[in-house]
């Protein structure tokens, strides 16, 4: 830094320190106000927040979800251990569940389907024509004869036998759809879980699956999440206390982290955002940044005290003067990188991005200003809080590190890093977009939810749905034999994919009606040969049935219909393959009267999300790196500087991506927030150390000594933050939510690699390459600082 700018900064710092009471009071007041708002932040999951609104699939889903079923489907399976479901006791339970589901908050009462609902019907021929009546509504069968009749009706009905009653007759399904936006997942989950628990027993198992259950569970574990958060905090305090042996070294970082969190949450409330429990780990990531900044300042402060600063005010002054630039750079780079995430057109990510940027920017005040100001009160003589001193150990590590990077080993460090980078970079290409495993990656594989999901998908065609809209160009288009046959062929084509358990459409409904009309002759289970014939079949189905019964298949004008595909899982690969196959089929087999539109239901909207993530991942990584490069370039007025700081970020990214690929963690809507934000982090440690070297070179021209000195001060800060954070973040791995555990480990890896590359790789590179922006050159030598700096403030 030029001496002139240095002097100006010095004056600002003087003002801050002179009016330190006012500064602290202002921050406290602001924190109170923000705390008031922060207390009102809602913690909840809004599924529609996860969906890219402008994506065509999501728009199709929004347009048709009320008729063809949305993405909030809950499937409840009633399964018997012995015999089949056709007993009064079991059927009674099915009816009880079906009725009680009506009372659940946010349920779309028209979209509850089960044996005991009005929706599942038997179509049969009688003297008065075709009659269609509910299978088991409103009354249960009275005796064995009626049960036998129900059983026969079920077996005869391809819309029931298979989709709603399992092939072996041991299980039946109850499905309910929830309205988007109105559903409180936690309440819905608790109510459904109650209903299920009551029905459980007497040789009957009740299992449930679906996004509302899943997000309800996540909210259900919120108190556990809170406990882990508090436990992490406690561990953090203990570790800081153990290492620093001073109260200020323990409390000041926590105050910084706490105050910035309060400000950020307050801002979130003011911006009208809520907090998603799944991204609470992200909060930890940002808090880590605040802690790190504060610890750096304290570490520098202590260094100045050791070097004979006359009082705490002057030590605070010097430490802020030295760390202001790298601190600014670290915070601003992080904030801008996080802002880049908002380019991804997913509401949740946009919100996280805005909150994250504000949060990071608040560190400028809460850590960079508040910590030195508070330090100025701390005095220079301290008795350690406890006798256990691990400073020699830390110093040992730091000395080893300094010795390593200034010796011949520095080449080994660089070559080793290059190899790790290349290998992990190549392995990172195995990272999958979308969920990488069946079941929900949010929960552990042996969790009740995931075992339930596996059981339901084993008994039935698949609990995850996608509907493809068949949009007719005129009324009655769906009655055309070519259209219906096209739909059936499309279904057949899609069912060749093993993960597609089955599909259903008007083209399945009409053959069943046709067969009934033809005395039940199996050879007539086929579509009508003409538009008129199909029209009659539709009419026969609709007449005698209630309005709305047809909605699942087609509208009243037989203009728009849907093909619903059932998926056994919603892994990224499954969805991608399915969507690619739909597109391929549509281009190869155009039907003149209609158009096939992708895609609704859970699988459809997840397909949209995955497409957005896939299309945007290169873009967002590139933009984030660009932001980083530009920030560093401007700060150090050197293009080399930009690229120099890119290296640790690239390394930590390829390694975390490799870890995700190795552990089968997909880049999904749930992991993306952490991964996307992570790009912006991990550079701050390097900035502190490299800038430390540079600042040291203002005093002398010995690069080796400068490196050793920077590692002793900035490196100590890095070591302390990394140690405490990595050790406390490991606590997350005990979470009942697999996602939190994995994200915790991911963050730990991130912090560890960032710290390691800051302490070993960066100094080694400085020692080897001697970039001009750090060590200067003959043409642009580094200014030697004026010695007047150390004069105490009067």
């Amino acid at each position, binding site marked *: 830094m030029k001496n002139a700018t240095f002097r100006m900064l010095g004056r600002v710092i003087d003002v801050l320190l002179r009016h330190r009471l006012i500064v602290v009071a202002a921050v406290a007041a602001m924190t109170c106000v923000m705390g008031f708002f922060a207390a009102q932040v809602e913690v909840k999951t809004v599924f529609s927040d996860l969906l890219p609104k402008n994506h065509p699939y999501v728009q199709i889903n929004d347009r048709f979800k009320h008729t063809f079923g949305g993405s909030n489907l809950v499937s409840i399976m009633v399964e018997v251990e012995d015999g089949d479901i056709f007993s009064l006791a079991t059927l009674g339970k099915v009816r009880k569940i079906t009725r009680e589901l009506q009372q659940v908050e946010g349920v779309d009462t028209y979209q509850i389907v089960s044996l005991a609902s009005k929706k599942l019907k038997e179509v049969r021929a009688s003297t008065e024509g075709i009659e269609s009546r509910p299978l088991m509504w409103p009354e249960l069968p009275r005796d064995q004869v009626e049960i036998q009749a129900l059983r*026969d009706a079920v*077996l*005869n009905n391809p819309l029931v*036998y298979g989709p709603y009653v399992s*092939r*072996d007759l041991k299980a039946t399904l109850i499905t309910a759809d929830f309205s988007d936006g109105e559903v409180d997942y936690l309440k819905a989950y608790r109510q459904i879980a109650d209903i299920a628990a009551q029905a459980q027993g007497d040789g009957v198992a009740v299992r449930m699956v679906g996004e509302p259950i899943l997000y309800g569970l996540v909210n259900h574990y919120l108190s556990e999440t809170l406990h882990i958060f508090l436990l992490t905090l406690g561990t953090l305090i203990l570790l800081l206390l153990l290492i620093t042996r001073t109260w200020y070294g323990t409390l000041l970082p926590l105050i910084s982290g706490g105050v910035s969190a309060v400000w950020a949450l307050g801002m979130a409330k003011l911006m009208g955002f809520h907090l998603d429990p799944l991204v609470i780990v992200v909060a930890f990531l940002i808090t880590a940044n605040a802690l790190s900044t504060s610890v750096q300042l304290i570490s520098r402060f202590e260094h100045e005290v050791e070097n004979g600063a006359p009082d705490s005010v002057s030590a605070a002054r010097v430490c802020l003067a030295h760390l202001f630039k790298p601190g600014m750079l670290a915070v601003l780079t992080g904030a801008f990188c996080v802002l880049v995430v908002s380019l991804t057109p997913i509401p949740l990510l946009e919100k996280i991005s805005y909150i994250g940027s504000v949060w990071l920017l608040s560190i400028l005040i809460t850590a960079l200003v508040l910590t030195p100001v508070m330090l100025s009160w701390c005095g220079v003589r301290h008795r350690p809080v406890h006798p256990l001193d691990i400073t020699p150990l830390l110093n040992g590590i730091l000395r080893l590190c300094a010795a390593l990077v200034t010796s011949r080993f520095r080449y080994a460090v660089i070559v080793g890093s290059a190899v790790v980078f290349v290998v992990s970079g190549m392995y990172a290409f195995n990272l999958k*977009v979308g969920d990488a495993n069946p079941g929900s990656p949010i929960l552990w594989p042996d969790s009740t939810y995931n075992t339930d999901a596996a059981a339901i998908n084993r008994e039935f065609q698949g609990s995850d749905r996608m509907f493809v809209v068949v949009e007719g160009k005129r009324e009655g288009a769906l009655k055309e034999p070519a259209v219906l*046959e096209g739909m*059936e*062929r499309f*279904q*057949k*084509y899609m*069912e*060749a*994919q*093993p993960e597609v358990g*089955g599909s259903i459409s008007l083209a399945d409904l009409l053959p069943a009606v046709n067969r009934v009309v033809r*005395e*039940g*002759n*199996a*050879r007539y*289970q*086929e579509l009508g*040969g003409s538009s008129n014939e199909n029209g009659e079949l539709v009419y026969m189905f609709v007449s005698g049935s209630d309005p709305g019964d047809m909605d699942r298949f087609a509208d009243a004008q037989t203009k728009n219909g849907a093909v619903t595909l059932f998926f056994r899982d919603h892994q990224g690969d499954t969805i*991608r*393959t399915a969507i*690619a*196959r739909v597109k391929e089929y549509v281009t190869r087999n155009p039907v003149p009267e209609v158009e096939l539109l992708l895609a609704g239901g859970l699988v459809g909207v997840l397909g949209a999300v995955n*497409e957005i993530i*896939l*299309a945007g*991942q*290169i*873009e967002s990584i*590139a*933009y984030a*790196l*660009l932001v980083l*490069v530009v920030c560093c370039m401007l700060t150090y007025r050197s*293009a*080399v500087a*930009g*690229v120099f700081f*890119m290296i640790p970020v690239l390394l930590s990214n390829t390694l975390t991506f490799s870890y995700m690929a190795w552990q089968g963690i997909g880049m999904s809507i749930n992991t993306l927030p952490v991964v996307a934000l992570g790009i912006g982090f991990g550079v701050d440690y390097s900035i502190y150390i490299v800038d430390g070297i540079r600042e040291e070179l203002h005093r002398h021209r010995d690069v080796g000594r400068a490196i050793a000195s920077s590692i002793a001060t900035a490196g100590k800060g890095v070591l302390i933050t990394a140690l405490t954070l990595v050790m406390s973040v490991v606590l997350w791995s005990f979470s009942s939510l697999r996602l939190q555990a994995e994200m915790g480990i991911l963050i730990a890896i991130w912090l560890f690699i960032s710290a390691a590359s800051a302490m070993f790789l960066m100094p080694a590179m400085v020692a*080897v*390459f*001697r970039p001009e922006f750090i060590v200067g050159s003959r043409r642009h030598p580094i200014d030697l600082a004026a010695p007047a700096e150390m004069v105490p403030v009067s």
Partner: protein
Amino acid sequence: MLDAITRLGGGVRSVVALTTSALPLLIIGGLFYAAVFVKAEPMVASLQAPTIERRDVFLGVVAPSADVLWAAGSYGKIVRSEDRGRTWALQQTPVAEHLQAIAAWDLQRAVVVGNRGVVLVTSNGGKDWREVDAPRSEVANKLMQVRAYGNGVAWAVGEVGAVLKTRDYGMSWSRALEEKDQAWNDVFLIGDHGWMVGEFGRIVTTRDGGESWQAVESPLKSSLMSVHFRDAVNGVSVGLSGAILVTADGGMTWREAPRVTREHLNCVIWDGVQWVAVGDKGVRVVGVADGSRWTGGRVSEQDLSWRTQLVRVGEGFLLAGANLALLDQGQLEIIGRE
């Protein structure tokens, strides 16, 4: 390292200088390019549809030898196995109509009939299926069943009283009876003796190889779906709602056996030991040689699919219907299902 470079002299130094200043710009440019222009494309492995898919319906089967099996079904699909059903090969056909039945003269020559009067023939084991012209009605033309006999003779029956006959391995077809508003569901011949059954419980019989047909009184008004004789005298016909008719006089008089199921029966055969009939919801009905005692049951307790036909294959059976299945020593294997 810089010292080492300094010692190398001016030329190398300027090259290094140029590289170090150009490289960052290149990297930044590359990032910008990646951000704006590069879009990741999903990689999707291509998927080969299995020969027999879940949605395939096979309505007709034939076993021209103990090893060779042939099946015809929905959307013009024909498959053939040459290893008793272990592996199946798809055969190309020129039509997309649902095929209802298949009959074979030998391993090479066969005929298939189906909806809209479609008739296909092959003379090379199905490598080529050719559509041939057959008489059609103005009203409806679904052909239900086809049976092949010696010297290239075959009979096909279907809607609107269709009774078609060929004498040249299916190359040309002629109408054997006038159209009428009643469908024939099955035809069966032994030598010059023959029988046809159809809608409204109608039964006709011939004693001259099909030159002339006489109506026989039927005890039923509901449709008969299938007829089979174990010799010229003893025969059985089955139909809707579990109907079973038995004759012991060459089909002149028929008596109804007590029903053992309410399900439709679609096909009956004599397997050498007993009568076996199959139908809806996986039912199987077996009867003793003289048709005096019948017992109901299922093909397999785990399977409730409807069946339209069964043929004897070695010690077991090949079944057509909602799926294609092999039954061997009570074990049902559904082909094409995992």
